[in-house]
């Protein structure tokens, strides 16, 4: 489960962590992605595993468009930039929920049959459900890919440079908006991947994102903003802590453990475990 939290958080790590833009609509991005893979399954009988790249591609376009149409302007705000970002994306989240309810109806959806759904691998007496297993693998791949991308490609460096000093990069001829639109697209595409995997074993309805959003924020912050590896580690820690707390306390309190660990970590290391910001 921890790696899945990581997978959901990885897109946020890019947008929230690397570009320093608050995105309160992250859960709703996930919701849209889950609906996308649901409808691909319902109408074209494409298994979520196959449709994952399609969903990711569609989410890439969606993320870039959201950036160009809305977030770009939020970042331009001269005053209170942080608050403007929070509330613009928060408003966006509400609109997305409303639109989902309008077009998709509030009915609970779910993909009943898929290649992975409900199958389990048993290794040495420990049950590992296949969807989670695949999710974990995808998660590791996504993190590795993103890590490589940020640290080894020109574009990744451009992204980081743009965040640190938009003025300077403009001088070298990098268009800030293009870089960031690409970054948002990529972040959304990663959420798309997460959504496609999640759709296999989770239910889908307009408010589904809310359950995951806070955990994703905590995961990213626990690992430290600006660190891809941190988000990865954060995901694993959150998953472990959740499992351990559920054993020690009544399960309804299991999130308390996650939150307490977050507080503990930032009190000791105010920038998260591996944060650079």
């Amino acid at each position, binding site marked *: *489960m921890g790696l899945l*939290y990581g997978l959901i958080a990885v897109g946020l790590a890019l947008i929230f962590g690397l570009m320093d833009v608050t995105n309160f609509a992250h859960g709703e991005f996930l919701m849209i992605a889950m609906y996308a893979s649901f409808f691909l399954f319902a109408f074209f009988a494409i298994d979520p595993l196959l449709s994952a790249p399609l969903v990711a591609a569609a989410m890439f376009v969606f993320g870039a468009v959201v950036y160009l149409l809305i977030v770009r302007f939020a970042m331009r705000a001269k005053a209170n930039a942080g608050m403007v970002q929070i509330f613009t994306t928060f408003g966006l989240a509400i609109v997305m929920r*409303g639109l989902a*309810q309008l077009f998709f*109806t*509030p*009915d*609970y*959806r*779910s*993909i*009943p*049959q898929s290649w992975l*759904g*409900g*199958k*389990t691998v*048993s290794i040495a007496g420990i*049950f590992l*459900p*296949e*969807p*989670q297993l695949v999710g974990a693998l995808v998660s590791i791949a996504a993190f590795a890919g993103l890590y490589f991308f940020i640290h080894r490609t020109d574009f990744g460096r451009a992204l980081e440079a743009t965040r640190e000093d938009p003025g300077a990069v403009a001088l070298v001829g990098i268009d800030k908006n293009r870089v960031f639109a690409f970054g948002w697209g990529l972040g959304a595409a990663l959420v798309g991947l997460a959504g496609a995997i999640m759709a296999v*074993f*989770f*239910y889908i*309805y*307009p*408010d*589904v994102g*809310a*359950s*995951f959003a806070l*955990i994703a924020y905590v995961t990213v912050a626990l690992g430290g903003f600006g660190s891809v590896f941190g988000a990865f580690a954060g995901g694993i820690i959150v998953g472990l802590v*959740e*499992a351990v707390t*559920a*054993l020690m306390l*009544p*399960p*309804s*309190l*299991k*999130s308390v453990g996650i939150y307490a660990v977050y507080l503990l970590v930032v009190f000791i290391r105010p920038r998260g475990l591996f944060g650079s910001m």
Partner: protein
Amino acid sequence: MTITRRDVLLGATAAAALLPLAARAQTSEVVIGATYPLSGAGAQVGVDAQRAFETAIDIINNDQDFDLPLAKGVGLPGLGGAKIRMVYADHQGDPQKGRAEAERLITQEKVCAVLGSYQSAVAVTVSQICERYQVPFLSADNSSPSLHRRGLKYYFRASPHDEMFSTAMFDFLDAMKKKGAKANTLALFHEDTIFGTDSANAQTKLATERGYKIVADIKYRANSPSLSAEVQQLKAANADVLLPSSYTTDGILLVKTMAELGYKPNAILAQAAGFSEKALYDAVGDKLEGAITRGSFSLDLAAKRPMVGKINDLFKAKSGKDLNDNTSRQFMAMIVIADAINRAKSTDGEKIRDAMAATDIPGEQTIMPWKRVKFDDMGQNNDADPVLLQYLGGKFVTIFPAQAAVAEAVWPMK
């Protein structure tokens, strides 16, 4: 001509005779309010409820040949054929909003009764407001037993509450045990809301009284992103019977997680909610062959009472779904309140309340397996017999109590 005393008296009598006519002419429409979650997490239920009320209103307002109160003839005869109009209000599952909306319905929309509300927490505040304005509140689908025990005069509930449901569940377990089924240990699995808490309290009490052993009592956070840790504990406890009290979302996740972690109890005996929603069976029906849920409604009744099937067709035409536990109760709530307004011959809250208190509808004139609709002095209908339904071959089959059953229970579940 001089006006005599007699003339004045005559005039007064004539005016008095005319008054009810005038009053009747004014009330050609009776407005009833309903407050439901129409956006947010419970929106699906709210939207389905609208369809259920519309179906009932169709039957009341138009001439239909059903053996239900008010089906024949147009509108409410007691109010000169007045038709019913519904006003819906969205409370989004928030007690404050429910309160504000109830107040708006009563003071702005001039509703003469309020129906609601799905979430029990909202029913608490809505019924308080109704009490203050002396307008009857009829709980269509709230099953929390604490609701009718607050000494409210204007609170009514025609359907069973969780203690009645749980009693039926334990009666069934007793009967199965007599037949030699293995059902000694129980695992409770309930959400941390009013519904989950009340349900678990009732079940714990009954289990102790009747000598069952609860080996796991797991309270979880509603709408959790993951239930793996919870299911691991259920699996470790390995009870004979699992008793979940969950809404649709957590229900789906519970069943999926159970399948993934390879946990399968002898029987699942659910406190309805999510387990009577079609969405849950669409999602995970294949893993629930043989699951049992309590219910207040069963389509099997159509065999004995053909009108149930016809009304289900009417509802299906509107919503594309079969009547279920919730929508059937909502449908009946509309019929019960309309019947009371009709007998009250008035839209005055106090008169409707008195008429409600005098309600006596025989079970055959409902679409439910109930004995009758008759309220005790706390506003609860104690003759609303619950049923237990087993999910077999893609549909629900009534298995308990004996007089309503159409099949034997399959035990253990597949």
